[in-house]
């Protein structure tokens, strides 16, 4: 299973690295969103640094949706899905691989965005341990839940509109928890943040487990 | 009764929506039964 996962993740990341869609489009899109938020809210630095964590995670969600969509577009183009299905790879392995690749891309995106938030919104990074754990759990959660829904929406004509409708409500608690945890960390009151971090880990565990169990049947005949 | 307008509006819209939904289901059911031959509906 782990070997299969590594194979699939490696393949996805290689495809992404070569197509450069992520670098050329998704990352600029994410930074653009940060700028647009600044236009929409206020150029006032206090406002922006106060809402920074929330905006950061909203941006991660939206860019994450793009990454998830990309992850399945590369399968439905040229009917690579059928090849994947016939490859004899373990369903759970494919799930972990695809989710892992999405998580890796999200992690890179988060680093860039964090820089963007620090520079553009004048946010000072306090409580690095909590920030890192929050990012870790939230990223895994988003990637796992997104991948489960990604395969459901993949290859459908209505894919582009169905995926956000399915994923965003499911990710609502992640958005809430991650934003609150980051706020707590940045405000220097980590005690407020730990329950949220725990919740994020619970979410990630549930959806990773669910994906491992459900992905095989979903891939089989979708 | 205070706020009678709001309260009646609430009751009226609830029952109207429920009746509308029930009516839609039943009408559509009738239409579909007519499209199917008796031997299909067993």
């Amino acid at each position, binding site marked *: 299973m782990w070997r299969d996962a590594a194979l699939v993740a490696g393949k996805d990341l290689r495809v992404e690295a070569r197509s450069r869609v992520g670098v050329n489009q998704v990352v600029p899109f994410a930074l653009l969103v940060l700028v647009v938020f600044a236009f929409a809210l206020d150029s006032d630095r206090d406002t922006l640094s106060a809402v920074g964590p929330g905006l950061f995670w909203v941006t991660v969600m939206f860019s994450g949706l793009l990454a998830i969509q990309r992850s399945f577009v590369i399968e439905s183009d040229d009917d690579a899905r059928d090849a994947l299905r016939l490859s004899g790879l373990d369903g759970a392995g494919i799930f972990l691989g695809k989710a892992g690749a999405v998580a890796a891309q999200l992690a890179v995106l988060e680093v860039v965005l964090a820089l963007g938030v620090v520079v553009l919104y004048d946010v000072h990074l306090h409580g690095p341990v909590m920030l890192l754990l929050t990012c870790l759990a939230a990223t895994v959660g988003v990637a796992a839940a997104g991948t489960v829904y990604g395969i459901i929406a993949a290859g459908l004509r209505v894919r582009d509109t169905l995926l956000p409708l399915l994923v965003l*409500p499911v990710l609502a*608690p992640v958005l809430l928890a991650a934003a609150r945890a980051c706020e707590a960390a940045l405000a220097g009151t980590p005690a407020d943040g730990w329950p949220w971090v725990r919740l994020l880990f619970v979410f990630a565990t549930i959806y990773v487990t669910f994906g491992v169990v459900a992905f095989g049947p979903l891939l089989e005949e979708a | 009764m205070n*706020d009678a307008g709001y309260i009646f509006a609430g009751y009226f819209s609830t029952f109207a*929506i429920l009746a509308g939904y029930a009516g839609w*289901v039943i009408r*559509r059911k009738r239409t*579909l039964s007519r499209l199917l031959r008796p031997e*299909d509906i067993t």
Partner: protein
Amino acid sequence: MTTKSSPAVRVLGWLSAVTLALTAVMALVVTPGDVNMGDSVRLLYLHVPTAWLAMYVSFGVTTLASVLYLWKRTRSRFWDLTAGASAEIGVLFLGLTLLIGSIWGRITWGVWWTWDARLTTTAVLFVLYLGYLAVRKVPASPEVQSRRAAIVAIAAFLDVPIVHQSVEWWRTLHQDATFLDDRRLLDPQIHGSMAWTLFLGVIAFTLLYCWLLAHRFRLAWLEDRLADRAMQVAIDERRAEAGIS
């Protein structure tokens, strides 16, 4: 199954109509206003039953039916159709819950919406199950569609406790000014007739749910048969064209 609804279903329909009418009369005429809430309490006789039926009964049935569909030994189209029918009614009831709740909020708090824990959970739940219904509408072969829908239903259900927990904390950790003390307002000194009316409302809406479910299931089943028949007709035509009989 026949085209006409069975006598049992018809009795159910009449019973729910009568109890609903009774509830409305009790709620609007007979019961007194609440000591704290005044007349706005009359809206709760609709609000509480719809919320209860939507969240616990309808979505509970959807989840259970989805599990039964996925479990190989009980797999049948019946459970899939039941899950879909129940979810649709649940979304309808939850929509009504939000509508009534928001009117109540307008009277009590002066605003249509607040980011109260219960409200927010309900709204997220509403959107989650709208997504489920959208997945059901996506065309695919019947088996693929059913399995996909069942998995989405279970994934949505798994999310419910997490949403609830997160929203609960969100509101308690960020409590600026309490609009209302939930416990005091929702557990007031209930007048005898008020408790009975609420109880009657729950029964009325439960009967209505069962009646709607019977009809909605039947409709889904007819749609299914119609699709089957269309397929059969198409196959027959192709065979006739090819001269096979």
